[in-house]
């Protein structure tokens, strides 16, 4: 059984910028454990000499020319901003 400590889960939550209450940490830890336990069955597959697939397509070298295209207006850019000031996106104190 893939076992994950609560501390490990807290660390993962930090990496993902999520937070859970103490009560929920227990619940999600056991749910994650169960799921990871199941998906860990991939470890039993023999993949010697098999390369990982990052792209199902056989496409390569997709580029665009270095030609300018219209940007959106400042108004559009800020349209959905939860908080703005001085034509920019405002965020609280960076810690």
């Amino acid at each position, binding site marked *: 059984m893939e076992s994950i400590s609560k501390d490990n*889960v807290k660390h993962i939550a930090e990496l993902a*910028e999520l937070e859970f209450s103490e009560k929920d940490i227990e619940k*999600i830890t056991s749910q994650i454990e*169960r799921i990871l336990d199941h*998906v860990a069955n*991939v470890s039993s597959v023999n993949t010697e000499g098999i390369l990982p697939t990052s792209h199902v397509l056989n496409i390569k070298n997709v580029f665009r020319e270095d030609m300018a295209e219209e940007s959106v207006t400042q108004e559009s850019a800020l349209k959905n901003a*939860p908080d703005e000031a001085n034509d920019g*996106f405002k965020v*609280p104190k960076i810690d």
Partner: protein
Amino acid sequence: MEIHYLTAHQLKDMLEKRQISCTEIVKSVYLRIEEVGDRLNSYVRLEKESALSRAGEVDKLISAGSDIEDFMGIPIAVKDNICTKNITTTCASRILENYIPIYNATVIDRLESRNYILTGKANMDEFAMGSSNENSYFGAVKNPWDTDRVPGGSSGGPAACVAAGEAVCSLGSDTGGSIRQPASLCGVVGFKPTYGMVSRYGLVAFASSLDQIGPLTRDVEDCAAMLNIICGYDRKDSTSINVEVPDYKSFLKADIKGMKIGVPKELMVEGIDREVKEAVYRTIKLAEDMGCIVEEISLPSLEYALSVYYIIASSEASSNLSRFDGVRYGYRNMEARTLREMYRRSRAEGFGDEVKRRIMIGTYCLSAGYYDAYYEKAQRVRTLIMGDFKKAFEKFDILISPTSPTTAFKIGEKMKDPLTMYLSDICTIPVNLAGLPAISIPAGLSGSKLPIGLQIIGNVLREDNVLKAAYSLEKAIGFTGKPGL
């Protein structure tokens, strides 16, 4: 014949013969929406005013002598994870509840150039994560065949709309079966094109290497017509295939004599409902009667497809959803005093449980020390799965299987254990891992009058085989059921 249950090609015919106006079509659909909307909850947002206004414009064009092309003036529902400029696009999440896109998805631009009518944004599982449409911030969608049951997911809204007559057809998205499985549970047609055939520009990303947009329709003919419009190279999407788009309608032939059909053993396992299996066997018999050669085949790596999918999809999703942080758009917890507080609270409050679960799993699978054993390992097994399919298609033209192991299950039935829910997708998931085209067509009704879906899978870029087989079998099966709603 109720107007709201006609197909797009039937309506086009009537428009051409001036037997109906676009405004009448749209009004009829909205009447139906008003009639059943509360019971189904298939829409997050309706666009009645603009729809009627567009309908008026289309009618003017038609009376001015304009040619009537496919889907001109046809009411279509769009899954709410496809960006529609200036119209709220929520992905059924609190975190995007008020997000107004500043651009159109490429598929929307294409539909607009055909003068389609947007009925509204269809409900879905939050961020396309789910198989029952119970994970929506705006409440669950109900199955029109039995409102105590789920419509499937994540395109539950689009499927329910088409099944209930709340739209003539709809656009959904499919990452692990999200078009096909709800199509199966709702008794409609759902198609996932070859990965790369439809632009993902404007589709809010769930798992980038698996997502595709596709149509949900009443019949295979409408499906082919829709593919003609939405498929094709888009330079804004680097994963878009640059090939000539065939006329998919040219594959609508009822003759599939000699077609070699494979039935993957691993997709007919014990977990599949007896009635579902029987429907598949009945269809096999029909195919054989039509001159097809049907054989069982084993794709051994399919046993691991579910795991491979959940590792890869969750990993990609965990990264794709990082952008939802309350900085540039979306929900922000305004009481937070520091940046980290703002990130964490906004995301904890903005995302539903299933989304958070998958972000956690994905972050874990990519994290230092686990990447090799999980993400990279899954990528290798994915190569094996693609290899198994490649071998199968050397022998067969198409593969068939059930779309879903069961018919529509009851609301709440699988919510206790996420893993149980994930198993709903075992038949559809392998297809996305290999990037193959696949369709679900109604294959009959169960004893309790619930739709059963049949899945037809083709090789890469072989939509022709899939459509040929689907069209022929659809005719042979002769499914005409409608929900009693």
